[in-house]
């Protein structure tokens, strides 16, 4: 029983990280109806920026509250800028083109990001691009046991609490932004119909840019949380994690904010149980199996609504 509870806790903790990445997918899909394949890679860039920032700081500073906040902020801001550029120069020119064009572009951006980070580039002693070798993310948050129940029957780690906490705060914030603010209303309007949204005086391009930036910043935050747990950072991490987050978003019904969270938690739990009671090597296959199953049975996801093509 206690093992079961432990798995649930672990599953939820990793699920929250998927959820943060999945929210970015869902938001971008919401406003653009585009699956931003590069989202996971933006997250990877964020992790590297966080890594670089923490290496610049003194060990003590990087573990202080100030240091951790700084690391998160720098990574999130860099990714927001990256998201802005990707949208502005790769996606916006193709907005009125067939969807396939944008899809191929997104795949191209993803490929470019994940593989350019594998090319080690050192200019004047400064490492610009890190190379393919996995790096250990500094322990900016020292793992400690936050709560131990019984004779180590159930252990809850501080990073689990922190990531669930941060995720909860960010998700609540996002929910607030989307549903309670003027800007959120504009986002939802753009998501429903960007032409009509323009008629309301909503600057559609700006809303889409901002959504991209927000999603990318969230991804960076999630990436660092993930890296703290997994500690290994490598350029292809974004592809796998990104795809899983995408799976979560689709399971929840892409374009649906709470759906993404539910999907992500479900995926986190399923994976945890497969690893806990099965074998960890099957972990990645499970996510995709789950996805294919959901798409075949209910392609619109758990919360999504199907839209029929007009003839």
């Amino acid at each position, binding site marked *: 029983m206690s093992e079961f509870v432990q798995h649930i806790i672990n599953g939820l903790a990793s699920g929250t990280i998927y959820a943060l990445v999945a929210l970015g997918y869902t938001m971008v899909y919401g406003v653009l109806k585009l699956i931003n394949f590069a989202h996971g890679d933006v997250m990877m860039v964020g992790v590297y920026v966080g890594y670089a920032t923490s290496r610049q700081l003194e060990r003590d500073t990087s573990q202080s509250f100030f240091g951790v906040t700084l690391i998160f902020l720098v990574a999130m801001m860099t990714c927001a800028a990256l998201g802005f550029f990707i949208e502005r120069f790769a996606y916006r020119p193709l907005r009125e083109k067939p969807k*396939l*064009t*944008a899809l191929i*572009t997104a795949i191209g951006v993803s490929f470019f990001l994940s593989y350019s980070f594998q090319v080690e580039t050192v200019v004047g002693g400064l490492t610009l691009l890190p190379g393919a070798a996995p790096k250990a993310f500094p322990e900016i948050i020292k793992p400690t046991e936050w709560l131990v129940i019984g004779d180590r029957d159930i252990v809850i780690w501080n990073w689990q609490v922190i990531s669930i906490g941060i995720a909860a705060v960010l998700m609540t914030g996002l929910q607030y932004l989307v549903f309670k603010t003027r800007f959120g209303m504009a986002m939802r309007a753009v998501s429903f119909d960007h032409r009509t949204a323009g008629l309301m005086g909503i600057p559609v391009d700006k809303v889409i840019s901002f959504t991209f930036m927000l999603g990318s910043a969230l991804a960076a935050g999630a990436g660092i949380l993930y890296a703290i747990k997994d500690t290994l950072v490598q350029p292809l991490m974004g592809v796998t994690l990104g*795809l899983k987050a995408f799976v979560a978003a689709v399971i929840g019904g892409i374009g649906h904010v709470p759906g993404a969270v539910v999907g992500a938690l479900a995926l986190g739990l399923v994976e945890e149980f497969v690893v806990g009671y099965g074998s960890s090597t099957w972990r990645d296959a499970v996510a995709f199996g789950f996805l294919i199953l959901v*798409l075949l049975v209910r392609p619109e996801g758990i919360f999504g609504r199907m839209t029929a093509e007009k003839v």
Partner: protein
Amino acid sequence: MNGVLKGLLPFAVAIPLLWLAQFLTKDTPFLVILSLTVGVNITLAVSLNIVNGMTGQFSIGHAGFMAVGAYIAGVVSKMTSVYGISFLPEGVSDQVLYVVSLLAGASSAALFGFLVGLPSLRLKGDYLAIVTLGFGEIIRVFVQNTELFGKALGLSGVPQRTSLFSCFFVVVVVVVVARRIAASSHGRALLAIREDEVAAEAMGVNTTAYKVRAFVVASFFAGLAGGVFAHYQSIVAPSSFTYVKSMEIVVMVVAGGLGSTTGAIIAAVVLTLLPEALRSLFLNITGDGSIAQRVEQIRMPIYGLLLVIIMLVRPQGLFGTQEIWQVWPFRKRAKPASTTPGAP
């Protein structure tokens, strides 16, 4: 019967030429290996073009089918090579077993193509793309966990039976098949699905059946390519069939022009040889291996950038939906090419 003989004409021309090529290159192993890589890539690109280019479905898991073909063909070949066929001379027996294992691999891949084609009945565009990608990953994870396929280390000791001749014979077959499909009412049905699925369906095209058939044919040839690959690499490892391999093929198809068989061939040749050429160029100029090595590393980001730039500047790729002989300078009055790939 006369018609069938005419239909076999390309092979009658190709076979002697291929023999000649094999004979001429027998002392240049480097060239042969390079050519085999080119041949496998052409087969993959031309077959993927049937799904992505002609039918307008976007598959990004082609390496998965290649993996199925490679592993099944490899296993069959390994198991049968112990026995051989007693009443045949050894060389002939080997070749027969080679063909049998290739066909086994290709058929298994085709079966998987059928299974993956089924979701395409309900899913479109990006969702289908993800499913094909997911399928490719599942295959890889499955292989990594199966004793029979050598787990993560891969399948080693597959007999080296691929020759220049057999590899390019497969290329000739896939090209002829692709072109003949395109020139028949079936190809037109596929193109119609790409252009407008609703209209195609309304004009009596059984879009469901055609989409699945496109997947089956394409994965059959991907499996064949996998088998050929397995029989010259002799080691089949899961790392050869990742998402990256699938993307490489996608880049070739997109760059050549979605729907253009000759475009896919040219893109496959160029994109396979260019990195090699650059590598040896740098090696000769600088005499320094490290820069040459970086060519290989830089190849991938450049592929990504290439996709983005093609989509922004020339979304129809090199030839658009046309074949090389339809395009200037071979034809005086070139029609304005399309500006959009795939269905609207």
